[in-house]
């Protein structure tokens, strides 16, 4: 392990490696740095937060209902007297985990199908008809069927929480890859007729290398946008699912659910809507800036400008 990293480092120190260039470019992008910083902060907060702020997010203190901000409850309490800060932290764990994994899943599936359909001519028809089919499926009945078929099995195999987590990620991922696939395919169709790809083909570059070296880097920006939108989409979809009773148990906070539950209290206690809303928006925003920075950094034409 150490040997490998050692040798890698030696390799990299001589000629300036591509990845170091990428990092250099990334670090000059202020928005991207701020985004990455905030994202890291949220990540650390939701992972280590429960150790710092040790109130149980499910503990009900019935005498402290609907309280505003105070020392005991910095962000106030909800209608059952549960601590909002603790719930925000706990909810963040779930929402971040679901958002990131579901987004990655849908991105991988979408990109794979998009690239294959765009590049391999005989796959285009079947894959795009499959995309049409998935676009046409009504989400709610599909979810009900998936939950009916798999919940009990997953619950007994992995326990209620891990089982539902897997199910949620799968469900969100599998129902949101179509847009990415269509967009990537459209770009690939156009890219593969460009001169540099034709040149690569004519010198006999194998297909896999063409895709990885020439095609993928050039469709990165729509993928980045899809990724940003995907996280927001996953977090919101998760809340909609929980609300329908298809997601996590009801006493299990997530950002989307906190926001949803707070809507009725919009007039009495605006703070309750503000915090989860802010958490979702800022996280999505930070991912967006990171995406922007990464895209610029990976674009050799911009790099070094």
């Amino acid at each position, binding site marked *: 392990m150490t040997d490998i990293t050692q040798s890698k480092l030696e390799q990299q120190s001589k000629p300036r490696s591509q990845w170091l260039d990428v990092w250099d470019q990334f670090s000059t992008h202020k928005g991207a740095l701020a985004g990455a910083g905030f994202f890291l902060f949220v990540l650390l907060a939701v992972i280590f937060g429960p150790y710092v702020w040790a109130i149980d997010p499910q503990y009900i203190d019935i005498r402290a209902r609907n309280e505003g901000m105070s020392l005991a409850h910095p962000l106030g309490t909800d209608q059952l007297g549960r601590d909002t800060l603790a719930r925000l932290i706990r909810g963040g764990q779930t929402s971040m985990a679901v958002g990131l994994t579901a987004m990655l899943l849908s991105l991988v599936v979408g990109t794979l199908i998009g690239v294959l359909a765009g590049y391999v001519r005989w796959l285009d028809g079947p894959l795009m008809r499959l995309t*049409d089919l998935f676009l046409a499926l009504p989400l709610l009945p599909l979810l009900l069927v998936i939950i009916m078929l798999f919940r009990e099995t997953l619950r007994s195999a992995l326990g209620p929480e891990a089982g539902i987590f897997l199910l949620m990620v799968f469900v969100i991922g599998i129902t949101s890859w179509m847009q990415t696939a269509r967009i990537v395919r459209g770009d690939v169709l156009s890219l593969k007729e460009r001169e540099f790809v034709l040149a690569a083909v004519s010198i006999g570059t194998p297909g896999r290398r063409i895709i990885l070296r020439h095609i993928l880097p050039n469709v990165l920006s729509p993928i980045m946008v899809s990724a*940003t939108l995907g996280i927001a989409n996953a977090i919101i979809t998760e809340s909609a699912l929980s609300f329908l009773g298809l997601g996590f148990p009801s006493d299990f906070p997530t950002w989307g659910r906190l926001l949803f539950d707070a809507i009725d209290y919009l007039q009495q206690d605006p703070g309750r809507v503000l915090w989860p*809303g802010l958490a979702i928006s800022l996280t999505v*925003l930070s991912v967006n800036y990171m995406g922007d920075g990464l895209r610029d950094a990976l674009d050799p034409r*911009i790099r070094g400008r």
Partner: protein
Amino acid sequence: MFDYTIRRTLLAIPTLLFISLILFLLLDLAPGDPTAQLPLTIPPEVKEKIRESLGLGQPLVIRYLLWLQQFFVNEPLHYLTEITGWDLSGDRQRVLSWQSRSPVVDIILQRLPQTLWVVGMSYVVGVLIALPIGIISAYRQYSWFDQIGTFVSMIGFSVPTFFTGVLLIVVFSVELGWFPSIYDTTHVVDDWSSFLFQVKQMIMPTMVLALYNAAQISRFMRASMLDNLNQDFVRTARSKGLRESTVVLVHVLRNSMIPVVTVIALGVPTVFGGAIITEQVFKVNGLGQLLITAIQANDIPMVQSLTFIFAILIVAFNLIADVLYGVLDPRIRYD
């Protein structure tokens, strides 16, 4: 390209038949029951009778074939009868909703106006806002315009419509009393004042949806413009001495449209699918509300017909997108 279009259109028929079968199987498999919303005071044996009267006792294949016949033969015949006045349909059974026991297609046609007014308008507005924002943001990357545009569109996308809708109602209906919080679907526009009322009742749902749509489209527009702004052909065009506006709006824009066309083409069928949450929040009662109430009531003929119509639109608009790719980039070839 013409051959390709014809071939794809023909291929769409088996595709759609296959999709309709999958939809039917999915809806049949889904848990739930048309008697779910009845009060518990109605005893189970009565519920069983209701199910039988809806035809649920018959095997799956029969029910599917019956739907196919009703949807593809009886419905068109009925409309031919209405148009021509000849009795072509006889007493052929049309597709009937289980909730209202009335023809599904009639209800869908009844809902179309408000969906097109609100959801359709919001999509048009969304696209009209998004394209310039995306173009300017990319052209002046990291300017204050770009920063604000990014911020607003990210907020627009990450804050769900169930929140923005209620927020607007609380501010503009409850506190200020400017706009109605409940959409009047029976309203008829026949003069200036009724038109003003229509605008008033449309403005909030349209803005909520337009913000959401614009956020998405403008991000793709911006990203794709950025990709192309540094390409060689742009440099060539500039060095030829073309005007900057020509370079950006003709050369760069045209080459950046492919992802945007894809997103818009994917979005148009969802216009007809309605916006479930927004329609619910503002009581627009369009196609989205029709779909969700039908799903909740397990009204299978209604859900099947609606989703199938969406499937037709999805297949059609994806085909249109594919044709447009060829127009935007003549190098793209489908054999």
